[in-house]
């Protein structure tokens, strides 16, 4: 096979006549893209053919959903725009779950799809699908491009939209004839107009003053920190606010890492599987300062009973989120970092010790029930696994989780100190996310230790990407939390469906053999004692390593707020199993 020669990573600065396919790559190079995750096919073949001339690394995935999750994981871990590519028809539709995942979590991503020639658009030509129509509700914006000269402007605008304001995925669908035609490529001329900030953004002195006054006068304030902390890079500012005014910080799932877990003011995760004292302190608060979070139903419980005694300050970049679920007293609509920078000088020192003491005292009961304190009985609990993984990795690794019980245990027991170290699908809750997202994260942060923490169910949804790891020769460690069940669903069945375990027991392949078939080393872990050694072996191995960790089968995540209950109506870890009543609103 002819060896591919790549040019240096300099992009074309002088206007040049190129094919549409070449324009795609030239524009990506100009936008600073170095890695694209994709899968070829007829309608995108001209673009693939032109790749050899450009300094971009293409990662061949095993399923286009994997490409979208990889681009997403790349973006989450690195903060840069992730790029996925697919052919028309089935290639494009396979991206959709990954696009929706990125949309719900506001991840900057650009997806490029090929489409049939513009002459046959709308005729149900072979592998034609209306992907701009299909993805309309799950993209921030999308483009259908049918002329070579429109490719660079559309792509450049896509990058702008993906990263501006509240980030999100953008899809650019390019017809085959546009890829084949020639046009003048002029990177500078293709630059989009300056981004129009949302016209309803705004916060003024009066609003800032009112917020400062609420903070000054509050006795029981809590900061609610969300994903926006990371997206706006406001870690320092949130920390300053918390420290200056002695305000405890509760985090959403996607906010984990935005405020150091070890910080004395860190309460931990709020919401459905948050610790009791976190949710109780929100319910008892007299002031909530929401920073880059959207009062999702997973963190509020029933709205009619949510934090009824608290005034609310909402600092948020998306005006459509303010007053959507929770009515607020002060809305400061803008970039979190900018707003906090204006707010901080108005906030003075405060004595928060009484309130912090109250919260501390309330921890007592729940801490006793904490699974970490259960003596080693020979059983392997997933929570122990998370705790030990955290200890052994020094808490510095990037962890990509899947969705289910293991995800919640990870959030509870793996303590994230730094932003962008937890890669998890929060809004859509997409099973199959972990493995491809971790691959993307590794490309985004090649020097970081990357772990997959997946359930036995979700892992099998995208397990084919094991081959991608091998083909790309990347080092990733995989921990499968194998409980023999679709555990989170089993838990709901236990609590709300009288233990009718319909379709949740799961037969899985021998994951270590599966890894072996791919040329990936692995080990099975059955006891807590074996865990340390296995994790160290995984870390010390040059190539990827898979741990099949056989954990307690019928364990449940505690505490839990049943869907449709108030935030303080938690199911606590039972001393004995307690019967529970089904609620109307569960899934």
């Amino acid at each position, binding site marked *: 096979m002819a060896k591919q020669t790549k040019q240096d990573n300099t992009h074309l600065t002088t206007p040049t006549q190129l094919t549409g396919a070449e324009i795609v790559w030239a524009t990506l190079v100009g936008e600073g893209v170095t890695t694209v995750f994709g899968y070829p096919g007829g309608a995108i073949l001209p673009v693939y053919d032109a790749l050899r001339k450009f300094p971009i690394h293409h990662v061949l995935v095993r399923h286009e959903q994997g490409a979208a999750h990889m681009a997403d994981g790349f973006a989450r871990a690195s903060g840069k725009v992730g790029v996925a590519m697919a052919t028309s028809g089935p290639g494009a539709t396979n991206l959709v779950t990954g696009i929706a995942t990125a949309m719900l979590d506001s991840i900057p991503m650009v997806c490029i799809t090929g489409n049939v020639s513009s002459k046959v658009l709308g005729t149900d030509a072979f592998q034609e699908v209306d992907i*701009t*129509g299909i993805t*309309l*509700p799950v993209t*921030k*914006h999308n483009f*259908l491009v049918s002329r070579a000269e429109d490719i660079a402007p559309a792509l450049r605008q896509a990058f702008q*939209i993906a990263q501006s304001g509240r980030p999100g995925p953008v899809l650019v669908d390019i017809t085959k004839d546009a890829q084949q035609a020639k046009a003048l490529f002029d990177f500078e001329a293709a630059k989009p107009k300056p981004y129009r900030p*949302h*016209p*309803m*953004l*705004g*916060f*003024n002195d*009066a*609003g*800032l*003053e*009112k*917020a400062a006054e609420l903070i000054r006068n509050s006795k029981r304030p809590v900061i609610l920190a969300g994903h926006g902390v990371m997206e706006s890079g406001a870690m320092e500012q949130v920390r300053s606010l918390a420290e200056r005014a002695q305000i405890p910080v509760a985090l959403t799932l996607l906010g984990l890492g935005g405020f150091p877990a070890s910080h004395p003011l860190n309460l931990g995760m709020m919401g459905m599987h948050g610790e009791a004292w976190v949710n109780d302190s929100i319910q008892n608060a007299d002031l909530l300062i929401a920073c880059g979070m959207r009062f999702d139903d997973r963190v509020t419980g029933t709205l009619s009973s949510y934090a009824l005694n608290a005034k609310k300050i909402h600092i948020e970049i*998306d*005006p*459509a989120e*303010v*007053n*959507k679920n929770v*009515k*607020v*007293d*002060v*809305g*400061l*609509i803008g970039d979190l970092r900018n707003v906090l920078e204006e707010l901080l000088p108005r906030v003075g020192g405060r004595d928060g010790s009484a309130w912090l003491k109250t919260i501390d005292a309330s921890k007592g009961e729940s801490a006793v029930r904490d699974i970490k304190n259960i003596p080693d009985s020979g059983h392997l609990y997933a929570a122990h696994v998370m705790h030990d993984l955290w200890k052994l990795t020094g808490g510095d690794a990037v962890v990509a989780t899947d969705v289910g019980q293991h995800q919640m245990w990870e959030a509870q027991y793996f303590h994230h100190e730094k932003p962008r170290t937890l890669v998890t699908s929060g809004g859509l809750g997409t099973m199959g996310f972990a493995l491809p997202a971790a691959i993307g994260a590794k490309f985004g942060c090649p020097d970081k230790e990357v772990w997959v923490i997946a359930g036995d169910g979700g892992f099998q949804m995208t397990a084919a990407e094991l081959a991608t790891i091998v083909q790309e020769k990347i080092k990733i460690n995989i921990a499968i939390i194998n409980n023999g069940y679709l555990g989170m669903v089993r838990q709901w069945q236990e609590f709300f469906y009288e233990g009718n375990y319909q379709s949740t027991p799961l037969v899985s392949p021998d994951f270590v053999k599966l890894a072996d078939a791919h040329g990936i080393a692995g080990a099975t872990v059955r006891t807590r004692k074996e865990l340390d050694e296995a994790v160290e072996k995984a870390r010390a191995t040059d190539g990827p390593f898979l741990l099949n960790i056989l954990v307690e089968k019928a364990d449940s995540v505690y505490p839990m707020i049943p869907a449709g209950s108030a935030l303080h109506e938690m199911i606590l870890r039972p001393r004995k199993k307690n019967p529970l009543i089904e609620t109307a609103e569960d899934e």
Partner: protein
Amino acid sequence: MVHTFVAYVEDIPGVLTRVASLFRRLNINIQSLTVGGSERPGLSRLTLVCESSGEASHRIRASLFKLENVVDVDDIAQAPSVTRELALIKVAVTAQTRSQVFELVEVFRARIVDLTSESLMIEMTGVESKIEGLIEILKASDCRILELCRSGKMTMRRGHHTSGVLRALGAKSNEEVVAGAIAGGESD
């Protein structure tokens, strides 16, 4: 309550789908939607009327602005404005009943725009209630309505405004609506 939004949107394929899709996503029924040219080159102007809760207007307007092809959105709310609708009504007539319809048309300040031996066509512009009044009376008369076509509503604020200042105006009116809730959230 009934909300009326006036929006300027880019005049390119697919924009109407995006607007309509937003309302579908919010599970809000569009009562009336008119789209056509505007004084701004490359931009279409639409008037959209829908029924939703009072608080919804903030979120609808904010969500409309999130569509990349939407340039301006004005929430008319209670502002002084003119709303008109156009109706074309084809009525079956005979030599005996024709003059009766002529009279009605006169009273309602409508116009006859087509006339054959068996039917005539009425063109009428006006507010909704007036158009509905004519339709009711026609229905009650001996003349059968053969075809009825209504344009949906078009709304314009009163006063010496151009759409260039609509955004500022819209921002104001919107803030009045949510002022209680987002105290201090208005822009300078």
